[in-house]
């Protein structure tokens, strides 16, 4: 683990400065100004005290996210690289969808890293920052029709259901806007990946545009989805996004350390091994 060993001399510095900095700086949000638009509010945030155990890397995973098991394994590896004891918190919430500002309160109380967030430029408020990506995954076009091998083979009248507002959906809508009306596919926004896949199953749409890990998770647990297959996105290019962990913006020392740990784990094959173990549809971020 030579890449990891390079960290060891830095870890002591991180532990001395990073964790106290994080726990003392983060509450300053609440003290300096009240909530407004880009500064989330967490119920009872003024009662969340300073944590004492600085030998742990506290991370959150959310079982509602399709990659949560993979993310947990990667977070454990990151903690190991930092010579910290991994402290896992599994988010137990039942909402189908939530505003990202809800993560703020969860992180104040439970974790330094919240796994499973896409690297979208300007996609986050000033209170949040992302680590570097620990894997990259794609949005994929999926169909149950065995005769369709690529998007180009889909007849114009046949509808596509796209998980709404994703980078891939926006790219598709933009592309369709440049086509003559008679050549466009009807495109139906779907509130979630799950709904898009369900709509493909019940025949409302002929092709679904979903996040590949969501398809992977669905096919692992539900036999009815086993026959769905990914098709070539041509004439569109593939839409690929890196995925990293969300951190509070103030935790700059720790974030630097985590970034370097992810780089090392990417380089030495650890993350690739985890992805392979789960047959997860992603690649190590270069």
């Amino acid at each position, binding site marked *: 683990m030579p890449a990891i060993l390079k960290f060891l001399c830095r870890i002591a510095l991180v532990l001395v400065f990073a964790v106290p900095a994080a726990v003392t700086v983060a509450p300053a949000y*609440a*003290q*300096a*100004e*009240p*909530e*407004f638009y*880009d500064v989330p*509010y967490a*119920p009872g*945030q*003024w009662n969340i005290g300073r944590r004492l155990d600085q030998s742990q890397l506290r991370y959150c995973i*959310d079982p*509602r*996210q*399709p990659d949560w098991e993979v993310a947990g394994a990667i977070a454990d590896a990151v903690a190991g690289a930092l010579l910290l004891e991994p402290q896992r918190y599994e988010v*137990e*919430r*039942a*909402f*189908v*969808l*939530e*505003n*990202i500002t*809800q*993560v703020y309160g969860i992180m104040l109380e439970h974790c330094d890293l919240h796994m*499973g*967030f*896409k690297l*979208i430029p300007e*996609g*986050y408020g000033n209170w949040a920052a992302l680590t570097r990506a620990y894997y990259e995954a794609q949005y994929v076009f999926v169909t149950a029709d065995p005769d369709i091998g690529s998007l180009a083979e889909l007849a114009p009248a046949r509808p596509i*259901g796209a*998980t*709404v*507002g*994703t*980078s891939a*959906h*926006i790219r598709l*809508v*933009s592309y369709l*806007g440049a086509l003559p*009306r008679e050549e466009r596919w*009807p*495109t*139906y*926004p*779907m*509130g*979630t*990946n799950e*709904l898009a896949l369900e*709509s493909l199953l019940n025949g*409302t749409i002929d092709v679904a545009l979903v*996040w590949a*890990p*969501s398809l992977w998770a669905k096919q692992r647990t539900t036999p009815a989805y086993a026959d769905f297959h990914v098709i070539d996105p041509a004439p569109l290019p593939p839409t690929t996004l890196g995925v990293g962990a*969300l951190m509070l913006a103030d935790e700059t020392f720790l974030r630097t350390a985590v970034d370097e740990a992810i780089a090392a784990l990417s380089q030495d094959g650890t993350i690739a091994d985890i992805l392979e173990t789960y047959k997860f549809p992603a690649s190590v971020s270069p």
Partner: protein
Amino acid sequence: MFSGKILALLAVAASSCSLLAVQVAAQDPIDSISPVTKEMLLNPPDSDWLMWRRTYDGWGYSPLDQINKENVGQLQLAWSWGMSPGGRSQETPLVHDGVMFLQNSTHLIQALNAATGDLIWEYQYELPDDVNPNGERSKAIYEDKLIVATRDAHLIALDINTGQLVWDKQVANYEQGFAFSSGPIVANGVIIQGTTGCSNAQPGGCFFTGHDVETGAELWRVHTIARGDTPEGNSWNGLPVESRYGASAWITGSYDPEQNLVFAGVGQIYPWNAEIAGLTPPSSDPDVTNEALYTNSTLAIDPNTGELKWYYQHLPTDSLDLDYVYERLLIDLPVDGEMRQQVVTTGKIGIIESLDRTSGEWLWSKETGPQNVVLSIDPETGEKEINPDVIPVIGETTFNCPADPGAKAWQATAYSPRTKALYLPMVEFCSNTTVNPLDPGEIYTGGGLQTYSRVPHPDSDGNIGQVRAINLEDQSEMWEYRQYAPVTSSTLPTGGGLVFVGTLDRHFLAFDDETGDILWRSGKLTNSLESFPISYEADGKQYVAIVANWASGLGRLQSLTPDVVLPANNPAAVFVFALPDQMAGN
């Protein structure tokens, strides 16, 4: 003192059948509180504030005149009461027979002596752990029940005498995002409630429901997104129901007893961008349109059957989150020499619009603050020509005025029969708008898929907060007040010739209702005043009450006024003002 303690102990013992309701002490007003009858709701006593906007017509007007133009300068704090900090309250206290009913953001519901501020009883509704505590804008009283909506989409009824739970009815599943942010209205003996939170997790949108007052049982449901093979159902550009989102019904309606109709608004499309929502480009199918009914519409609903009698859509195919969901005021005034029964509303664009409430026919409009969204309005139909330059486009940044919180937001307008004027709390600002992918997580999403960077209006004089008085007889502007800090509460006109309003910089103001002159300004209170002020009478004395609380909405504009600093952790409190005893005749 000793007897008070004994009373308190006895009261606690008496309420032991409910662990959550705590009778603190028997107080005079609660001993004599009367049931709120149907007749009382039709013609409320001047001393009471029995529903969200006090009367079924939604005027938000108090006829009390003990506090008037001559003596308002002597107004002073009578009492105050701390409420649960954090969360968003946007509270409208109700008052009946000298008892004030408050709902805290934590869903702690309290009855106070409205003359003294002393606690009478309280009831803690337990929200699920994963539901953020926030308040409700309104609640209702009917017979001996206080009817309260909750953030986890329940309706509950409490006994107004004791605070004990009478019934609890789950209306929708909060895990799908359904919620209530405003409370119900009771019309012709039926509870009418609108749902909100309808974004990407609720295909098919929101709904109004009617409920039995005795049990809470659901009687009917009206979906706010049209469906079926009808002109309305085919107004979604050919999208299946599972691809139609939005149309939250988050503001309490008004009621016309003569027609037995409730008038309520419906919010916008979700996601906000019509292109991403699948509504543009328009379908080539001649049987399909893309107005997206019933978003941004006024609905007229029979409270007993749930039948939709008529609708009028104010802003079709909205792409800018410019709701027409707000209060509906029922006003009878002549139009072109003919007396018309009108329903008047003002959307986020700040354009006042009037419909004939017997038919839904559009009557007139009045543009107030600066905006660049609507280029023209057809004087016969009200159809709007939308400025194509403001419609957000993928890959571009567009400029629109106002921005998403609206020139006029949930802070309600109010109408005074004294002046025949509508009083509008407003703000002036614009937005650089960009369509963004906002799907950072699979569960955690970033909002309505557009980013609004709020900026001052290009011609701004630096005054963001405004109050406007518009005469509804001829739609002329009577007066306009401007100040730097946003105006953040609803307006409260009174029989004393005053109009009260609260601001982000913690002042409660009283204007002359005819001139707009400031006649009284409170000292700085504890927090931004983002709520619905009321006035009532107790023991022969008139009071004016407002809840201080930072509660989003126009307060979002604090990003444009960063020097208006508010306290940490968002304290909330109700402040109650009155004249000194000698001036009030006490």
